[in-house]
């Protein structure tokens, strides 16, 4: 119950205002199609640079929580999911809104998000110290394999081609080596003067997530908006509360699925919502009503994608392995504040980590309360034309990447990486494994070098890195995730053609 002692900092005026601002802003940005939660958190990181670490993390945590929930607003009122995590919500949410029950759909969505989100954060609170305690026994070789595992798992389980996922992770690991070597001071891959200081993680995060989005928005050309916001009529809140409580099976399925998927590194919320929706449908006595504006569909999908948020931070805080792409960006946010996640994070930074975790609990309540109030307004803001959104995101990306070190080099690198990522994405690459490689690269290399020095004094590098129960288990998980994903890919590819 250590966490109870750290609620004070959450309610300090500046922290609480940031929590409030992050929640409201996150709800609005989450509702805006084209602005993903990952990009929102990436664009916010430079602002946290000017705050105390605990305040910065509270802002990022609030934005993470509320952008996921805010995505339901546009899913319900515009039939456009604000984020991939809200795809399943669109199926019944929009149908319900079209039948004049938009307020009911929004209330069910935010109440289910609250239940799932709170349980998810409690899992974070209780599971993280246990995992951290276990991870304290890790030496350099285990930490090296953990970093490799992080890149591999997010590269292979994130969907799409396994080869391209792994290659993207590899490109990220290479980008992390650019600059001066920490130990020998040797220049590595500095083919342009602006790379002398290496690649700043925050500039890279902004470029990789924001610039492809800007180009995608511009690619729509001078098109008019082809959707209208459905007007929201009033609906008694208590009726929705009773409905959510009465649908305990859907809430349970959504929360369980979301929590489990959140704990698996690299899988993310988009899968949680769809799997929970599917399972709720399988177990429902009214499965025929799914897709026609049925409340169980909304409740299962929304409780799942918010239940995923807390558990996705468990492997992040203890092992530096993010559970979702947004958690990967959050890892960058922790690192720029000098907080390196790992088994001893709760011992070294209790005054930062516990208030951050607690703020996510308080943030769930704020998200639900404000979500219900501002949903209609958020949907109207989400109707802003894509030309304005593209211009605003581009300018924010430039200012944000510059403000971290007051360096134009970071802006140049941000833009170059962003334009490159747009074309890589079009070719089937995902930015998440690349970012993970970039963030975990220095951790992997540091532990590799340290391990190699120990190995020289012992039985050699091969024996040091490839023996020992924990090393073998980690290598086994790396191979299993690659093998399983390759098998899934082959099966999926052959399915329609060969009928396998």
């Amino acid at each position: 119950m250590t966490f109870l002692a750290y609620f004070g900092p959450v309610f300090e005026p500046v922290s609480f205002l940031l929590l409030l601002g992050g929640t409201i802003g996150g709800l609005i940005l989450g509702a805006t199609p084209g602005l993903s939660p990952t990009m929102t958190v990436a664009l916010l990181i430079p602002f946290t640079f000017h705050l105390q670490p605990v305040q910065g993390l509270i802002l990022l945590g609030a934005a993470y929580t509320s952008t996921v929930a805010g995505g339901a607003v546009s899913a319900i009122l515009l039939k456009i999911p604000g984020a991939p995590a809200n795809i399943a919500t669109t199926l019944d949410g929009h149908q319900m809104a079209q039948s004049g029950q938009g307020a009911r759909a929004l209330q069910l969505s935010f109440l289910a998000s609250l239940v799932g989100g709170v349980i998810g954060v409690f899992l974070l609170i209780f599971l993280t110290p246990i995992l951290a305690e276990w991870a304290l026994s890790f030496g350099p070789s285990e930490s090296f394999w953990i970093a490799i595992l992080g890149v591999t798992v997010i590269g292979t389980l994130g969907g799409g081609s396994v080869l391209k996922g792994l290659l993207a992770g590899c490109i990220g690991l290479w980008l992390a080596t650019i600059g001066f070597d920490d130990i020998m001071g040797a220049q590595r891959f500095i083919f342009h003067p602006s790379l002398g200081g290496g690649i700043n993680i925050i500039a890279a995060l902004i470029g990789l997530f924001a610039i492809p989005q800007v180009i995608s928005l511009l690619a729509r050309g001078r098109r008019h908006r082809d959707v209208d916001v459905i007007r929201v009529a009033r609906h008694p809140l208590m009726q929705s509360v009773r409905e959510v409580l009465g649908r305990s099976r859907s809430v349970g399925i959504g929360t369980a699925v979301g929590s489990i998927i959140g704990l698996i590194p690299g899988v993310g919320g988009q899968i949680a919502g769809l799997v929970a929706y599917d399972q709720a449908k399988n177990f429902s006595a009214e499965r025929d009503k799914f897709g026609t504006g049925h409340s169980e569909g909304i409740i299962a999908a929304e409780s799942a994608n918010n239940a995923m948020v807390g558990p996705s931070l468990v492997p992040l805080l203890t092992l530096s392995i993010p559970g979702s792409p947004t958690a990967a960006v959050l890892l960058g946010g922790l690192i720029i504040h000098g907080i390196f996640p790992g088994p001893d994070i709760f011992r070294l930074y209790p005054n930062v980590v516990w208030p951050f975790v607690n703020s996510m609990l308080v943030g769930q309540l704020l998200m639900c309360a404000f979500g219900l109030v501002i949903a209609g307004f958020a949907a109207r803001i989400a109707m802003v034309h894509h030309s304005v959104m593209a211009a605003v995101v581009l300018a924010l990306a430039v200012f944000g990447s510059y403000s971290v070190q007051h360096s134009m080099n970071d802006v140049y690198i941000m833009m170059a990486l962003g334009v490159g990522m747009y074309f890589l994405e079009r070719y089937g690459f995902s930015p998440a494994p690349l970012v993970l490689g970039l963030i975990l690269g220095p951790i992997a290399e540091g532990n590799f070098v340290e391990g190699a020095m120990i190995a020289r004094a012992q039985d050699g590098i091969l024996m040091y890195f490839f023996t020992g129960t924990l090393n073998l288990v980690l290598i086994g998980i790396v191979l299993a995730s690659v093998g399983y994903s390759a098998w899934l890919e082959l099966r999926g590819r052959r399915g329609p053609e060969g009928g396998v």
Partner: protein
Amino acid sequence: MRVDMRTLERLLPPGLILIVGIWVAAISYTQSPAAAFAFPRIIATVFVVLSLAVFIRTVLRPEAEDVTSAAIPTAEWRNFLPGLAIGLIYVYLAAANVGFYTSTAVVVFLLITLYDPAPHNRSATWIRRIVITAGFVAVMYGLFAIILNVFSPREILFR
């Protein structure tokens, strides 16, 4: 064998990635001190193997590629290229030489004007665009220059 434009477009991205991989490997294995390149050598080896595998797969099984891109439609190129060109000029030339706030105002106004479908012959359209641009730059100035104290490159129009 006749190589058409579609094949070339499909092979270009994995080909470029493979070239980068080979370049990374060449540098990793030839530069000294060797100890500083120990980790990059491992990365470079995996990089080359994976990019070669992707290239070979693209050549042998193009239908298996999950690429939508092998060809970005011409209309899409036509849509984003002007905006991208403005963005590149903004980042690599204007921001540092003209000043952040002045160049941002020009770029935001240009992008909105280029991509906004509202008719250009109405004064209300132009007023709305000017208001959005001025409002946004004012917010950025307040946020970065006043609240966060970010010292941006000197402006040519004002200090």
